Structures are given as C-alpha cells and as structure tokens.
C-alpha cells in the first residue's frame, strides 16, 4: 500500500504542481496589497497584517490544494464512467439556481446549501469537460474530422448549460463553457466546411444575441470597450482607471504597497476581476511579464504532459482544462489592459474568491490524474 502511494506521488507532475502553487502565493501577496486597510490589524506572531481577505483566501488555497490531490488520485476510468452523471447533476444544480438561487449584483448565481455557498456554474465547467471528453473519445469522427452531423451531440452538451447560465445572467461563465467546448472539438479537428458554416452561423447568432439576449449592461460594456472615454464616470470608469493603473506602473512598477490607484480605491473590483491591475501598477512591465510567463509555462506544461496520458479521454480532459484556464486568463488580462469588454471573469489562481480557485485546482487535479501512474487503483 505504502509502495502504491509512493509510486503514485512520484508519478505526479511536480513541476505542474509547483507552477500551480506559486501563482496563488503571488496572488496572496497582491491581494494583501489590494485589500490593504490601515484600520484593520491582524496579529500573527510578530507580524501584523492589515487585511481580512488574505486569510480567507489562504484558507481557500489550502483547501483547494487538498482537493487537487484528492482529485488527482481518482483514476481516469472512474471519471470516465461517471462523467455524464457529473454533467447531469451539475446541470440539475444549475437549473435549481434559476429557481432557488440568491441574487447578487443583479444576477442569480449562488446556491445556498446551508453549510456551503455553491456556484453551480463553476461545477458545470468541470461537468462539461468530463462529459465532452467522454463523448468525443467514444464517438471519434469517422474520417478524422468532424462533420456537421457528428457535431450535433457535442454541441448540445456545450450549448445546454450555456443557455441556462446565460439566463442567470452570467455572460463570462457561459462564454468560458463555450471556449472549453470549442477548444476540445477543435483539438480533434472539424471539416473546413463546418468551420466556414460555423463562422457564418456565429455572426448571425451574434447579431441575434445582441438584439435579443444581451442585457443592456452587457451591451454597454462592449460599446464602452471601444470608447471608454465616452462615459468616464459610468461604464467606462473601470476600463479607464484600470488602464491608468496598469500604465502608470511603467517599466519597474511603483513598488509593493505603493500603488496609488489601488490604495486610493480608484480600481474597482481590485481584489477580484481587476487584481492584475494592482499587480501591474506595483510591479510594472517586468513583473507583468513574469506573471504572463508563469501562466504560459503552466499551460505549456499541461499540454505537453497530456501526451503521457494513456487514454484519449485523458488527453481531451487536459485540453478542456487548458481551454478553460486559457480563456479565463486571456479574457481577464484582455479586459484589464482594455482590449476586451468587461465581462467579469476572475483571473484564475490570483483573484480573490473560493469558487474560482476551487474550480481551477479541481481541474488541475483532473489533469494530474490522467498522467499519474497507479497500480492498485488502475483498472487493469
């Protein structure tokens, strides 16, 4: 038994674990700066801390870490077997949110289950990864590339939860699920005609969505992105202030805890969606390159290690995880530097918040599980 555990732990991708561990630690330091409040003082041995959030986030981090190892130890065979169950129950929870969920910031996203506050849309991401990986690995395209017909089921798997999440409404999460699906399907490959048709369809779909589905606040955000100065006190405020914060960091940054945009509360959502503005203001271009490099390394590592997976299912799960993390990082940074609309997606591993952290670690755990070696738990 001990030997089995040893083999398992040894076979874990520790480089990936280190990369995935270092980002939240940096995140904690940035969070401390972002939530610094001289009126608050926590004593911890000789140190005093002027923030509540850091301790809570540290808790989330540690719990998530444990979760990751637990998930990593689940054999892929089991994930495969229960993938559709996970998907169905996540979808059920998602539907119940529409009925029982609590409203915050104008949308219904949270489910209060007595002891824990759950965001089923986060669970749904994992559910979609698993279910899609299962379906795609079971029903590969007949001649190597997917045709329109063959894509019907995968599209349903992706679009169903997307529509439900759009009803909450939560555009960011819905899009991230779309991104997960797209990356997995594209990884296998689709016919050119399908790609062409899809691009036409999405253009029409975009127009329809703009006319009937997008909320005025979402439209405003998209319009504001193109011209934030048109409404500097209203919806353009976040973008302008974030750009000022990032830009004023210049090459070397203003120094830790010295970011005036942050300290004086000019950056909205500075502990969550805009945490990167805080970092970029205090650490400058060079610091930002370090963070960018770490994310890139993390995603590279995930992708390159997926080849070690013994099963196609495992590769697809990893691709889904990469798609999800990449989409979050790209959209979040794009929003912070002002070339994508403010859709309200957190920066994985760095933004404050338990749900996002948990989902990320959970999915990293899945990726770890497909490459880990087991003798006892292996189905063989």
């Amino acid at each position, binding site marked *: 038994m001990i030997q089995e555990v040893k083999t398992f732990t040894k076979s874990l991708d520790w480089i990936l674990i280190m990369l995935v561990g270092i980002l939240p630690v940096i995140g904690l330091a940035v969070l401390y700066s972002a939530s610094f409040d001289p009126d608050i003082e926590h004593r911890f041995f000789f140190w005093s801390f002027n923030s509540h959030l850091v301790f809570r986030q540290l808790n989330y981090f540690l719990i998530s870490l444990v979760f990751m190892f637990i998930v990593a130890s689940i054999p892929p065979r089991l994930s495969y077997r229960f993938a559709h169950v996970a998907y169905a129950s996540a979808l059920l929870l998602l539907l119940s949110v529409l009925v029982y969920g609590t409203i915050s910031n104008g949308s219904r996203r949270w489910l209060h289950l007595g002891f824990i506050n759950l965001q089923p849309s986060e669970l749904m991401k994992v559910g979609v990864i698993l279910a899609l990986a299962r379906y795609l690995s079971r029903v590969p395209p007949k001649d190597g590339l997917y045709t329109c017909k063959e894509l019907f089921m995968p599209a349903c798997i992706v679009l169903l939860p997307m529509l439900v999440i759009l009803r909450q409404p939560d555009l960011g999460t819905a899009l991230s699920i779309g991104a997960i699906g797209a990356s997995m399907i594209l990884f296998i490959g689709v016919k050119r005609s399908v790609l062409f048709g899809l691009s036409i369809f999405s253009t029409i779909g975009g127009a329809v969505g703009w006319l009937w589905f997008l909320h005025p606040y979402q439209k405003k955000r998209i319009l504001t992105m193109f011209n934030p100065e048109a409404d500097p006190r209203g919806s353009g405020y976040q973008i302008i*202030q974030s750009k000022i*914060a990032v830009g*004023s960091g210049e090459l070397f940054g203003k120094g830790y805890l010295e970011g005036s945009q942050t300290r004086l*509360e000019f950056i909205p959502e500075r502990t969550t969606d805009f945490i990167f503005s805080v970092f970029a*203001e205090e650490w400058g*271009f060079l610091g930002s390159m370090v963070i960018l490099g770490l994310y890139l390394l993390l995603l590279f590592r995930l*992708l390159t290690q997926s080849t070690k997976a013994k099963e196609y299912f495992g590769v697809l799960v990893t691709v889904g995880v*990469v798609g999800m993390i*990449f989409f979050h990082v790209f959209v979040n940074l794009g929003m912070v530097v002002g070339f994508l609309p403010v859709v309200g997606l957190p920066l994985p591993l760095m933004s404050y918040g338990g749900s996002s952290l948990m989902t990320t670690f959970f999915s990293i755990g899945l990726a770890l599980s497909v490459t880990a070696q087991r003798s006892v738990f292996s189905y063989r």
Partner: protein
Amino acid sequence: MYSSYEKIPIQLPQRIYVFLLALLCAFFLIAARLWYLQVIKGGSFAEQSKNNRQRTVSVPPARGIIRDRNQVPLATNRPAFNIQMYLQEVTEVDATIEHLADILDVSPDDLHHQLHKQGGPRFRPRVLVRDATREQVERVLSRRLSLPGISVSHYPIRFYNEASLAAHVIGHIREINKAELIQPDFRGYYQRGDVIGKYGLEDTWELYLQGRRGRNSFLVNAHSVKIQDLSDQTKAIPGNILQLTIDRDIQQAADRALSGKSGAIVALVPQTGEILALSSAPNFDPNIFTGELTKAQWEALSQGKERKLSNRAVQSVYPPASLFKTFLGVAGLEEGLITKKTTEYCPGYHTVGDRTFRCHKHDGHGAVNLEMALSVSCDVFFYILGQRLGIDRIHEYGSKFGLGKATGLELVQEASGLIPSTEWKQKRYAGTPESRWFPGETPSVAIGQGATSATPLQLAVAMSALVNGGTIYRPYLVQGVYSHDGKTEKDSFRPKMLSQLNVEKKHLMQVQNALKSVVHGKRGTGKLAQLPKEWNISVGGKTGTSQVVSLHSKTEKREHEHHALFAAFAPSEAPEIVVVAVIEHGGSGGIAAAPVVRQVLEAFFVKSRALSVPPAVRHPEDVNT
C-alpha cells in the same frame, strides 16, 4: 465500449504544437499591449494617476479690514457657515433633502433649487444653505449621523460692524457675476462664488482689499475623500487694511443728524482735504448685500424714489443758492469792484431791463455793505455785484473755487455741477436764438440759482479754500494702506493740492470774517449753528435756500419745498473743520440745515477738545439724536 477510450486516433504532437502556437500568439498580444501601456504610454498614465488622486482647492482670503482714522473697525469679517452636500456620499438625494428640509424647517423645493443651480465636478460640494444661522448649524450637527453627505463648512464673510454707518463711503460687496468672471483683468484671479466690491471704497479699492488666494493640495481617494494634506500649501493672505480719514464719531453725528431726512453732509479738514465725515441720506445697511439679495430687495434699493444707493454728497447737484454769494464776494473784492465798505441800497427788489428780481426780504434790507449783505443774505447786493462782474467773471471765480468740475474724489462716479458762462450757453444752445447770454440771466446766477449747481462736496472744498488761505485740495478718504497684520504701511496718502485761488489773502479774510456774522451777528441767518456759549468757539458759515421750482409755481407739496443748505467752518478765526449740509426739501437753510451742521461741529469739538454739550443748550431737535 472502452475501445475508443483507450486508443488515441490522431497525431497528438502535431495537434499540441498548433495549440501551443495559438497560446503563444495570444500571450504575445497581451504582452505587446502591456508594453504599449506601461512602457510607451507609461509616462502619460503615471501623470494621469497623479492627477487622479491630487486635488487642489483654493482657499479664499479674508477681505481687508476698513477702519476709521482712529483705527475703529468699520468693515471686518465674521465667520459664516454653509450647509453643503457631497453628492458622491449621498445615495438618495431626494430623501436626504426631504430630511434636511424637515430638520431646518425650510421648504424642500428651495433646497432642490439651490442644488440644481450648481454644477461642476461631483467632488465639489453643493451649498444648500448659504450663511446658515447658528441654530440651523446646531440642528444639522446634532443629527449628523442621519445625514450622510451633509456637512457644514465655514468661511469668512464681510461684516459691517456699524451697519449703515458711512454706508455710502464704504459701499458694499456682491457675488461676482458671470460677465465679470470673463473680464480679462479679472480672469484667473476670481472664481465663481467670490465676492467683489461693487460700490464705494469696496469697489475702488478692490485690488487692495481682495487679498491673495491660498492653495491647498491634498490626496483624495476614489470617493474624493481627503486622505492627507500634501506639502504644496500656500496660505491665503488676507486683504490689506484700509485706514480712512473718516472719524467714526463725527460720521455717526452726521448720519444721525440726517436720519429721517434726505440730503448729505460733508465734513473736511480745510488744510488737507481729509474727509472726516461724508453722509448721504437715506442710507442702507451694506450687510444685506453679503447674503442672497432678493429681487424685490434689490429693486427697493436701486430703483426706489428714495434712491438709497445714490451718494448725494458727490452724485447729486443742488443750486448752491446763497452759499454762492461767498465766492461772489471774494470775486468782487479781488476785482476791485467793491471794498468791504462799499454799500448798496436794497429796496427789496432789483430791476434789469424789464425784469424785476426780488430780494428774499420783500421790504428790503436798506443800505448794506458786504459783511451785512452776507450776514442777512441780501440778494439785491449780489444782483448788483453780479451784474458788475458779468457772467464770465462769475464763472471764472466759481471755477477757481473748484465748482463746475469733479473734485477728483476716488469713490464713485462724481457729478461735476455747473457754473454757467457765455461759452457754456453757446455750446448748450448752439444754433438757437437762446445761445446768446442775456444780461437778465446774470442775477439768478449771482445768487447761485438758475443753471448753477454744485455737489455738497464741491461746496465743502470751495469753503475750505476760502478759509485755508486759498488752496484747493483734492478731498480724500483713505489715509493709509497697511498689511493685514497692521505691521507694515504699504501706502500712505498726503494731502494733494490741486490749484491755488491766486487771490489776495486779505480779501479771503474779509469774507471769512464776514461769514462769522452770519452765525454770530444780530441779524445773521445762521444763528442756529452757534455752538454752546461755554465752549467759546465761534462759527463762520453761510446759509443757502435753493429753489426747486420757480416761486410762482411753488405749491405746498413737499417736493416743491426748497432745499436747505448750510456751509460752516469753526473756529471761525482758525478753522479746523468745514461742514456742508444739504437737506433736500428742508426749507430755509438757516432753519433746517444750520442745526444739522451744528450737531456735526459739536461732535467734532467734543472729540477734539474733550468738551461736553451742556444740557441747558440742547436744542429741541437734538432729542431724537
């Protein structure tokens, strides 16, 4: 079932490279954008982030103090309180205003009106109640917790310690208007809400009184809440102190003497031109201009028949009437047309051609010399003298005494008055048969009627020249300008001679002595100007009763009543003060104006010689003073 699950049907490495490339491209995009924002545009964003958090508020200076010659404050500053609202801290503006209106017991509409009147950036507070009462401030402060975003600010506001005292001299301030804000000389200095002098010394000395604005820079957070002061602070420098030539006590005596009447009093130091008192009635309380003036209030002040804002001492002209005989006497002596012994017979009338001019004493004064003619104010004596002098010599002497042109007092737009001449008439009636001067017009001018007119101040300056040996001084009101702490004298003003009469002193003395008999002579017309006998101070003076309408159209109406004039100097041998009083529609100068002058003279000597007015000689009209 697990078959497809186990085998990997595509060329994995190739797919992964495509994905890696895509990732790289996406991250390169972000990195390039960061390079653009942080390195290329970094400097400008750094500047923006500085401006973001730095606010500079200018601190209005306290207005300079105006005090009298003995440093008694006349215009100072008092603390005023504004109740204001920070829009950014108020979530429910309407509810807050309802609540505040309830607390202050005012109408919510008024507060809304005030709020919507003000624009500008949201971090700037909106003043809801300007210059709130102490009670209002206390009510707000005690309910502070239920009124988030409402605060009380304080600032200095102009305060006129003596209310209406010398109101026409000191003038008043007003909030600067839009047109003035864009005036080139004002731009950059004044801001909306600032006050500027609009009248009187407040206006003419604005540049000295305004002081210098201070700057206060501080850091704010995104909610515009002040976090800390920055080192870039400049203190506001209060305006300079203006020390006047006015003596508060004499001014008060003059104001009181005029109370309930309309008219003007000017008191000068004859040897310097310093104005000891300058009073115009009816007057106003300049304090009402520091608050919000309603339209009705403003119209009552500016347009009413009483013309409260008009400074009658320098802006109104009156026929000098018999006062003018004084200067005519000097002209007659100087021109050798009469000596002090020359007598004329007054039958009570005088005829020129087919016109008859009446003396005010219809049965005549009999034989009168110059002294007697002045003392009893015989018209006939001066009809004859005037005719001998001719209109142009009358004009010449009148002008020598400074009549017919502004005295140069820097206060308000001055009226210049008029001494007619042939030249004037030619210009005035050019091209009409009226343009020629008719000898029959001269007698009216000789007794200071007809077109002749002068301001009370001009008459005081002329009278001063008579008794100071023949110098016309420019009258002035400001003795010195001191820095706000009173330590350094920035400017001082010496008496300024404008011209000399170039008349023999002997002749001036003869007229001066003759004027003593107006007050102290047996038949003198100005006996009511006599000072208490115990003081042993003699007074010289001349009465004047100027017709408002021609005698035959005169009715009992008040506005047809004569203006009463009296000009005096005391002590008569070596005058220290000259006082001129005009009481509009007061009737006879000797009866209506002389006692008024006496009250001012009394105040002067009570102060300068530490005398007191014996109760026994109190005149009945003193009772209300």
